């Protein structure tokens, strides 16, 4: 059935994550719950860059910034800070920023003392790559908080687009992404189907169909990714609205 087929762009990718990892973390409520640890770790590995940008904006020294970021994640994963997260404030994004702010204000010096005591980070963060990326950041007047929010959105989008692209590659349709991606940001009329069809060696009608599936899959994955960072799936649209507002500011 065509309806089934649109569910995934291919059936070969078994990957996929639990839908709302953040809710797993929140409901666990115990620092040593291993599911929660794993879920939180996955989230952190995805969204560390916006945090790094925030720290780096506050701290001039690259080494210090990298140490602080590492230490923050170690603190987050091991101290059970999450268990104290306020359920009502739901969103992972807001939680992370607040936790980081508190950490920078209070914890950093204590952590400094403990650092050589062997706390080890379980996440693999390529902080050096992050630093080179940071050097490309525009040095405009926007606050570290704003930059954090913005990077959050771009990180999220890059991740979703990467997933879409990876699915296409697995399905042997890597060219589809380049030729049909314009349709993701627009509606079905955004794509020049004649041109795309010629490039992809299919009929314009088939190109249109492919673009439709791509859009649909993108929307699904995007909502899935957003859902991972909110406490309840019902909050997804609200969070998307806030992300949109972030981009306007």
């Amino acid at each position, binding site marked *: 059935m065509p309806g089934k087929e649109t569910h995934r762009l291919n059936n070969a990718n078994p990957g996929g994550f639990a839908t709302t990892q953040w809710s797993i973390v929140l409901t666990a409520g115990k620092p040593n719950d291993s599911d929660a640890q794993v879920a939180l770790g996955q989230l952190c590995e995805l969204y560390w860059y916006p945090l790094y940008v925030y720290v780096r904006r506050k701290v001039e020294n690259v080494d210090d910034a990298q140490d602080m970021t590492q230490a923050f994640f170690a603190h987050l994963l091991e101290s059970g800070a999450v268990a104290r997260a306020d359920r009502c404030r739901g969103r992972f994004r807001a939680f992370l920023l607040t936790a980081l702010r508190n950490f920078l204000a209070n914890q950093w010096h204590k952590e400094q003392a403990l650092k050589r005591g062997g706390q080890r980070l379980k996440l693999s963060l390529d902080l050096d790559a992050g630093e080179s990326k940071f050097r490309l950041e525009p040095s405009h007047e926007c606050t570290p908080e704003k930059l954090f929010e913005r990077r959050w959105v771009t990180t999220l989008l890059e991740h979703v687009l990467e997933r879409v692209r990876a699915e296409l590659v697995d399905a042997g349709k890597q060219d589809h*992404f380049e030729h049909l991606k314009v349709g*993701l940001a*627009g509606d079905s009329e955004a794509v020049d*189907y004649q041109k795309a069809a010629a490039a992809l060696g299919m009929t314009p009608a088939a190109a249109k169909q492919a673009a*439709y599936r791509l859009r649909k899959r993108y*929307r699904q994955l995007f909502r899935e990714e957003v859902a991972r960072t909110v406490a309840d799936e019902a909050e997804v649209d609200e969070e998307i*609205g806030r992300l*949109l507002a972030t*981009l*306007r500011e």
Partner: protein
Amino acid sequence: MSNPQICPNCGAKLPDDAPARLCPRCLVAAGLESHAVLAESAPEAPTIDSPAASGFVPPSTEQLAGEFPQLEILSLLGYGGMGAVYKARQTNLDRLVALKIIRPEATLDRTFASRFNREAKTLARLSHQHIVNVFDFGEVAWPTAEDQPNRPLFYFIMEYVDGVNLRQLISDGKLMPNEALAIVPQICDALQYAHDEGVVHRDIKPENILIDKRGRVKIADFGLAKLSTQKEGEFRLTGTHQVMGTPRYMAPEQLESTHGVDHRADIYSLGVVFYEMLTGEAPMGHFDPPSKKVEVDVRLDEVVLRSLAREPARRYQHASEVKTGVEQVCGVHAAPPTDHSASLVDPPAAGDEHLYNTVRWPAIAMLVGGGVNLTGFLLWIWLLSRGNYWHDFPLLIGHNPEATAWIFFLTGAAGIPMLFSGLKMLQFESRRLALFGAVMALVPLSIFVPLTAPIGIWVLAVMTNSKVRAAFRHA
């Protein structure tokens, strides 16, 4: 895609960090539930396998012709997320009309028909010179596939506007600030009227603002209109993606929810459109006030920024106030209706009396100064021709005939550019020539420098004024 730096969907400039060179705002907006409703409803459509389900393919004029015997369908004007618009002739009245059909996938919802009827009646009630008139509406049976039952195709018959939309004007770069200032008050009139009627447009954007050949503004597609006097939720127009406006033009409160949105959301959207008309791009991030980006009166900044206030309560509360604000800045009469088929010959003169006067007096002084210089030169020629040699002339310099000749020659030489400068200023034509004349008036070439130097300074002062510069640039 015409320009890779501009989002083809919303017209915004792509930020440097745009993922995959796609507009982040549109990408995020595409994830909204309201978009998803549309996508998920599609598989129920009987024609899922046809391209029509995955993307709307507008019916051909021939296909439609049979369904609308009262119309002669001439051509497809355009189509978009909501449906398609055709140019047609209403045969019995022999007038051109626009036929707008709603894409069938958007009308699957059972309650659509009643909502459509309610909306259409509201729209038909609006009658204003700056709002596209709705003449008729209804539904016709539309054959979907051989083995499927017919489905209703909803349509509007509307006033046909022969012209362009504001998006086209903005992207062609043809829109001058003084034209923008002529367009905004007309939009305000239309909005104020609709708001008084209890109708909020909810999707004001350049694509929905049409300008006919005579320069009159017509607002189309009160497609998201919602009766603001009715209870929240009672009249939610369409259940599909049309509930949302276009993110870039949407007021913050509209972005966050579709509830609690009143006519002030239109004022915000108008502010975005206004900003874009002046600067060529929609306000994003920490945007500069318009006067920082282009040469417009700084007083316009306040009008634009107040329309764009985040808090509805801090915005202008009525569209008519925006109009008043604009008119206070540019004098009561803005530029006359713009005709984009003809080039604008004398916009500053028409657009701004005050500006014209600012330039006129120094221009006349320049003409007088140039005239005096030239008269001196001609006098010398005349003396020469009468055989009165210069050593008889009282203004001899050390009885040096050559020096005297040079002085008179240079006096004439300074006079000619000054005359041209004055003329060009009066015609708002060449700012460079005007400046050259001013410099010539300042350089002590002529014996009349004590007279011409102040004129030169005056002209320089006037010509470097930002409004004057803008007027010359656009002329």
